[in-house]
């Protein structure tokens, strides 16, 4: 094959020298000819790359992301690959520096392009949060909506979010429910209903307490019942109401003894917290007898079953082990003898006029609705829009509805309007017109970035006064918003998706192999990572702590799981990881679990995760034809690593797997639910590895040290991900300028998280907008391949 290429290359280089030598030719062209053209030419197009077709700087800048990758790979020594002659260090430096200088020049002089944000509908989380902030309504209306499609790893990408008729129906139904709950039409004592809190109980879980806040619809008498379930041992069940003990009783979960405590209390309207606590005690003679009788009966039953089905003995024994006693439910029935409830707080949010029920006039109905619309549409409402709403209200009132019923209709209409459902920025139609977004649009961008919800009154006022875009005002607002509890949305939604934490809810490690993976352990894993990221934001840590921060947040259960001594009690607290193998998020059980399969670890998944989410070098897609690995058949044996080695022996696969697998192997000491282990399939685990550039490491600590040394790669990775999340669109070539600025800012500020947030908020893509993308893209033409 080489024989065919050489003459072609000879001709090419002849042709090159024949032309006048531009700076591009001198600095890049010659280098490419000598070191890359053997494979990356227009005939072979190895890995889809034809570097020889770039003839000038403009073309190179057009495909900037490709060339930046070229610089990274050549500098890291990954290209040219092993076995081919390598250029000298000086040549590499000269060429790559020159290329970067071109990009820097472009960044400094070219017109900024902030990209265009497509009409962006609220996703489920944003819908729930917005409704809650708008009205304080206490249920999650979007729980029923179909799942949001995600793009670029996040579910808040405008282009990826669509509206199907099913979703439209749901919007209508949700708007009705919300309006009905927020606006009572009459104040009548409600009829008694049942309020039950009985969460699913994980198999063989310990659950000695249960707590729930009930929202009572009116003052009255309520029958309260708290119960326990499972088998074994006598307990005392104590019930607390709003922190004070109200009843205590001995219970034993055997057939003829009580297993619930019941009482009737007179409770006020509003929220009340009920907590049931199980404490064990020594059995009385009476209880002892009852328990023994029950145990004997149980054993007899089990023996009979085994006699009948001797082959199922193991299963039957398992079934009869039973659960430890656990608090299983808290229930209220009522209100009986109810009093008329007061107006709910939502009423005042809608009827800002302050008139009581049924005593509004036409004027205040109009102002109230206008006020609501302004908040819901996140901008001032036009007279035309108001007039349309007025007409709707009038026609509804004509059909005989009360004022409150009419207002419900108005609220419903607003909540299904595209002005509410979509965040739309009114760009000028000219695609090349770049402009600052107006203050209301900026307020929405800010609030949906940091709170996944609508702007609050402070932001709206600053926007009306045209103050928000002023740098010191903006900075102060960012600070305030991060300190507000609503910023938990950043952890839930950004970290939840970047770290794939949300998947923790739906992984199912095989209970036979991993019986410790109980519901409370799963919850603890989630809490650990959640608190870690929260601390990062609230305490403004360096983002490098994600890689090798030597601390975390544990409770006794999780500390035991990790083998870390000295942590007692169910509360979470900060724990130092000095002296242990773990650090950062990579060795947190949550991340280790979501990058595994139900029955085993996956070095490939873990390696890929690191490449995508830490090093910003997602592996290229497998070449066509892959998938039929080892067609000769036969099962693969040995440790996970040994099995993977066989895959990598295939040269088609090795190219990517030499990058992914070593990173995953380093983590092989952590099993599929994140526990430390030294053996797999009865053999010692070998967690050493070699990266493509030759760097060697032994174990996860050394691998992480190498990752930590690539600070800038990680900074860039996190910046890009957070930008995608903040903007709600994928990043394009023209965003590189902004990204580089933000990374530089991070470096200047010790990589503190706040520098990342302000960097993004102050960036061109965040503060500016451009007209619709489609014609602009047409101008660019298809990307070079």
């Amino acid at each position, binding site marked *: 094959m080489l024989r065919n290429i050489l003459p072609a290359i000879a001709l090419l280089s002849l042709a090159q020298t024949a032309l006048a030598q531009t700076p591009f030719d001198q600095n890049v062209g010659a280098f490419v000819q000598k070191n890359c053209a053997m494979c990356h030419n227009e005939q072979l197009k190895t890995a889809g790359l034809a570097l020889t077709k770039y003839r000038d700087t403009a073309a190179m800048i057009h495909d900037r992301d490709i060339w930046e990758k070229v610089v990274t790979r050549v500098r890291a020594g990954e290209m040219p690959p092993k076995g081919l002659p390598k250029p000298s260090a000086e040549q590499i430096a000269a060429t790559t520096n020159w290329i970067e200088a071109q990009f820097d020049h472009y960044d400094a002089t070219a017109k900024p392009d902030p990209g265009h944000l497509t*009409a962006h509908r609220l996703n489920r989380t944003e819908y729930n949060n917005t409704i809650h902030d708008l009205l304080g309504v206490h249920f999650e209306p979007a729980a029923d909506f*179909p799942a949001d499609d995600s793009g670029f790893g996040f579910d808040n990408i405008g282009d990826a979010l669509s509206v199907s008729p*099913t979703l439209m129906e749901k919007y209508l139904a949700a708007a009705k429910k919300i309006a009905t709950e927020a606006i009572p039409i009459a104040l009548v004592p409600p009829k008694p209903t049942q309020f039950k809190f009985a969460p699913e109980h994980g198999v063989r879980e310990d659950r000695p307490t249960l707590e729930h806040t009930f929202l009572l619809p009116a003052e009255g008498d309520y029958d309260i019942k708290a119960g326990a379930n499972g088998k074994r041992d006598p307990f005392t069940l104590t019930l607390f109401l709003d922190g004070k003990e109200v009843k205590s009783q001995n219970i034993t979960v055997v057939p003829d003894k009580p297993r619930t405590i019941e009482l009737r209390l007179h409770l006020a309207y509003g929220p009340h917290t009920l907590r049931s606590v199980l404490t064990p005690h020594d059995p009385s003679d009476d209880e002892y007898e009852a328990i023994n009788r029950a145990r004997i009966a149980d054993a007899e039953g089990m023996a009979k079953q085994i006699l009948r089905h001797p082959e199922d003995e193991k299963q039957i024994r398992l079934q009869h082990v039973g659960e430890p006693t656990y608090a299983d439910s808290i229930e209220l029935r009522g209100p009986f003898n109810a009093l008329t409830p007061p107006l709910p707080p939502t009423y005042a949010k809608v009827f800002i006029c302050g008139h009581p029920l049924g005593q509004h006039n036409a004027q205040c109905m109009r102002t109230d609705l206008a006020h609501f619309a302004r908040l819901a549409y996140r901008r001032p409402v036009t007279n035309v829009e108001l007039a349309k709403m007025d007409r709707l209200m009038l026609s509804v009132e004509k059909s005989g509805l009360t004022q409150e019923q009419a207002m419900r209709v108005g609220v*419903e209409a607003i909540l299904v309007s*595209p002005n509410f459902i979509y965040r739309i920025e009114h760009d000028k139609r000219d695609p090349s017109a770049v402009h600052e977004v107006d203050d209301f649009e900026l307020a929405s961008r800010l609030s949906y970035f940091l709170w996944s919800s609508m702007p609050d009154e402070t932001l709206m006022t600053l926007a009306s006064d045209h103050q928000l875009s002023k740098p010191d005002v903006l900075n102060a607002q960012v600070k305030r918003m991060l300190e507000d509890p609503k910023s938990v949305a950043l952890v839930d939604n950004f970290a939840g998706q970047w770290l794939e934490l949300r998947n923790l809810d739906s992984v199912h490690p095989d209970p036979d192999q991993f019986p410790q993976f109980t519901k409370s352990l799963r919850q603890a894993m989630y809490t650990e990572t959640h608190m870690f990221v929260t601390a990062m934001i609230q305490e403004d840590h360096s983002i490098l702590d994600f890689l090798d921060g030597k601390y975390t947040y544990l409770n006794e259960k999780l500390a035991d799981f990790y083998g870390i001594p000295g942590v007692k009690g169910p509360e979470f607290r900060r724990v130092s990881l000095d002296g242990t193998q773990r650090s950062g998020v990579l060795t947190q059980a949550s991340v280790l679990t979501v990058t595994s399969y139900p029955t085993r670890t996956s070095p490939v998944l873990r390696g890929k995760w690191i490449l995508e989410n830490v090093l910003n070098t997602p592996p290229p897609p497998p070449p066509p034809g892959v998938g039929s690995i*080892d067609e000769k058949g036969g099962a693969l044996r040995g440790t996970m690593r040994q099995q993977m080695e066989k895959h990598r022996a295939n040269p088609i696969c090795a190219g990517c797997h030499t990058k992914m697998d070593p990173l995953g192997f380093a983590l092989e000491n952590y099993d599929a639910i994140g526990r430390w282990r030294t053996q797999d399939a009865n053999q010692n685990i070998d967690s050493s590895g070699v990266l493509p550039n030759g760097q060697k490491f032994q174990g996860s600590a050394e691998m992480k040290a190498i990752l930590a040394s690539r600070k800038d790669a990680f900074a860039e990775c996190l910046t890009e991900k957070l930008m995608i999340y903040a903007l709600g669109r994928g990043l394009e070539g023209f965003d590189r300028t902004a990204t580089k600025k933000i990374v530089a800012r991070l470096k200047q500020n010790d990589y503190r998280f706040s520098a990342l947030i302000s960097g993004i908020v102050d960036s061109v893509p965040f503060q500016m907008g451009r007209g619709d993308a*489609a014609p602009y893209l047409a101008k660019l033409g298809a990307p070079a391949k």
Partner: protein
Amino acid sequence: MILTRKHVSRRSLLRGMGAALALPMLDAMVPALSAAAAVTRKATPNRMVFCYVPNGIDMRNWRPEAVGRDYVLPKILQPLAPIQDNLLVFSGLKDHNGEALGDGPGDHARAAASFLTGVHPRKTSGSDISVGISVDQVAAQKMASQTRLASLELGIEDGHLAGNCDSGYACAYVNSISWRSPTVPNPPEVNPRSVFELLFGSGEDAGDPAARARNNKIDQSILDLVSDDTRTLARDLGPTDRRKLDEYLSAVREVERQVQMAEKQAAENTLAVPTMEKPDGIPLEYGEHAQLMFNLLTLALQTDTTRVSTFMLAREGSNRGYREIGVPEGHHGLSHHRNDPVLMDKVAAINRYHMEQFASFVTKLKNTPDGDGTLLDHTMIVYGSGISDGNKHNHDDLPVLLAGGGRNFKTGRHVKLNESIPVANLYLSMLDAMNVPTQSLGDSQGRLNYLTEIS
């Protein structure tokens, strides 16, 4: 049968009997002496349902050996024994646009996206998704004037996970098989309670026809206002944004149509009435969940609330385990079996488990009278996958069968095609039977001729 001006409403019948019964279309229920009645009584409509299973099938245990009428049902198809006469098992259908065709990996996304559309999906992980309209939506658009719900999309697995979906393809491609248009998917509903409410309403104004009529009017006014708002908004926006709002507008119009039809049915007393309890939510067990969804589907077909449906028995690329049948390992992982017979057997067990759910559905349809025959006679149900062998990820020799549709096709055979034929050909023939003749769909090359012949 005595024709009087009075006719019996289904609701009063239910009240009288009080119990949850399946209600056949009694002649007495049809409004007497109306022209519409004559049409309805003559032509019981056809329905079409598409059931999808992911990650391919263990073809060793799917492909029957013998061809024609007397073939033995292999292990995965065995649960269909009670309805073998109503089956058409195909060997040789292909989904060409599931292949890479130069786009690299992503067979799962392509399989799901092309299965009902016959179009190669655009490879993108975010913004500009594009495939084609799916066969069920082609039919649904025509049904829109006749049933309250143009179509019903059901599923078992919710799509909202973090991370990417398949090698650079947007999650929309693996989450839905039904596509309203090349850019708008119809994501499936996975919560049985929501499906119930979709079919029968949330029951708030159930007993009060005056209230319901008024609410319908209000809904229509609201939707009018919303349409108006949307059109006004769109005027000032560029093409990409306008497209988004067009989506919104067409969704609003569809809901308007449903509201109007509900009003009409309420006035004529032909609103669908449920014959089962409202489900609480999503059952924990797979089998229970699947059965509940199939029951709701049966009810939807029976009450003529819809005539078109798709049901994803799991997301394409699903990696859930099935402990209840002794296979806790992830399905997707197993499907990359590397020709290990132990793993292939586990895949076969999962395939069979899915088939068992399907089998009890079609058996129930066979035992449900409908018009002049059974519900199975009048419903064409496709069951299959866009991937053949899960390890090779090939998209020819697809596992596809057609159940029912007895009065349109000659069922009870294993049809082995001489050459690879696009599965879209089958869909065109089905559309013919739905009275929605269509020239082409995706990569179709005409109708499938083998449906009405014995050979």
